[in-house]
């Protein structure tokens, strides 16, 4: 198999896409976002609970999409869980650089290692949007003015 294809569809990605982490609705979410990729019609929802110290106490995602978008969403939820909103934002900046094939912003080595499974996307410019959908959705959820009301 061609190397770039092997890298794109490596086992970690397929595993995340087949068995997405933190998948489903989230009760008492403080922030909710919905993203749409008009190219393929895929939709994703991201729900978060942000606590008083601005930590992401919980996160879930819903929706159906290609292996790349599902894996990216699943990996994202894994990585931002427990971090502050600011840290999540930095992580997102690094991720966007990575999938666009640009030099990633300075991130801790651990984070780079984990995000690197998505680096293969940069060889497929038509697929970058698939990889970034969940991240943009999370960002818009976090930025959406007043947090959604919790019961």
């Amino acid at each position, binding site marked *: 198999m061609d190397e770039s*294809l092997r890298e794109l*569809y490596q086992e970690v990605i397929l595993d995340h896409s087949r068995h997405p982490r933190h998948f489903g609705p989230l009760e008492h979410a403080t922030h909710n976002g919905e993203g749409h990729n008009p190219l*393929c*019609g895929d939709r994703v929802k991201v729900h978060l609970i942000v606590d008083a110290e601005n930590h992401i106490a919980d996160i879930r995602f819903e929706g159906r*999409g*290609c*292996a790349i978008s599902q894996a990216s969403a699943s990996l994202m939820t894994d990585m931002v869980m427990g971090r502050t909103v600011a840290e999540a934002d930095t992580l997102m900046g690094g991720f966007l650089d990575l999938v666009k094939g640009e030099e990633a912003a300075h991130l801790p080595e651990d984070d780079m290692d984990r995000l690197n499974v998505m680096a293969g996307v940069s060889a*497929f410019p038509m*697929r970058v949007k*698939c990889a970034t959908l969940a991240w943009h959705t999370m960002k818009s959820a976090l930025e959406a003015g007043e947090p959604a009301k919790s019961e």
Partner: protein
Amino acid sequence: MSFTPPLHDFPILSRPINGKKLAYLDSAASAQKPKQVLEAMTNFASSSYSNVHRGVHKLAAESTEAYEKARGTVAKFLNAKHMDEIILTHGGTEGLNLVSYSYLAPRISAGDEIVLTKMEHHSNIVPWHFLRERQGAKLKWVDVREDGSINAAAFGAAITPKTKLVAVTHMSNVLGTINPIKDIVAIAHAKGVPVVVDGCQGAVHEIVDVQDLDVDFYAIASHKLYGPTGIGALYAKRAHLKSMRPFNGGGEMIAEVTEDHVSYAEPPARFEAGTPPIIEAVGFAAALDYLTGLGRAAIKEHENAVYAYARDAVRQFNWLRVIGEAEGKGAILSFEAEGMHAHDLATILDHEGVACRAGHHCAQVLMDRFGLASTTRASFGLYSTRDDVDSLIAGLEKARKILT
């Protein structure tokens, strides 16, 4: 009848993609151009080009003649009764928008209805949504049956005294269904309702006779007919054209302009404001001549044979579901593959040199009807071969191995 695909006419087909032989199965999105079209455009631009109409110099005369000749070629291709029933547009989308803006908008009020089908391309939906949003028109949807066909009689039920227009595609760009236009037109006309047909796919695969179909409007796009982008045509019955308000305003479409008055040119010039796509018109005509020269019936038979070969080949995969199996359908194969998203599939196929389209194909209403977010689509053209299908099948098997 034997037809050998003239692959040598299409230089792009010999370009390797990702180190593999290209299997271009995306002609329904846009067809490749034969060198006859490319050369006609280059020759015209190198020897005769100028702006059209009004000019008195030799190049203006030659360009005007070539442009008007292209109109005549389109008229003949669609078997329009009069050459002035052909408006040269900037594409299929513009033709349908022109009908919405110039014909229907002045005739429609709140509560009036437009009947259309759930298999329409967005270009035959959104212009009608405009009238819903702006003027309170109501859209009435004729359903698509499970096999991808529609029942002409359903139009009889959908049309009421409030119906002002029926909008329907000749051929679905997703399902490949060929709709019974003649029957639909007869039903609509019996109730005094005109019919606009999106012919962007239909004119490619069917031999169109607008007089026999008795359609009121028929829109086509050059680039799907192996011609250049940026040009298309709208056939409209003369009686309608005379009563339609202008579309874009500008040069070429006027009779006289003063400080406080404007009068308009007769159709079709009234609807062709500004400098038209002249070189493209020459290419468009060359493409139609090319198709006619090869033999439309022979092309259709060839495409359908390649489609049938593909359809039979994918039957071996119990994990693949074909969407659209209407009787008499044309050469488009859409499918959903279990456990494989269309975009992942298309990426892997591309690596095998197979160019397929993945997504909603600008037909989200249809996708919703079938409960799908997207499909993968292989569409066939006059240059398609069984080798292309074999590449597709090999690619599908490979994708299955990688993704599931």
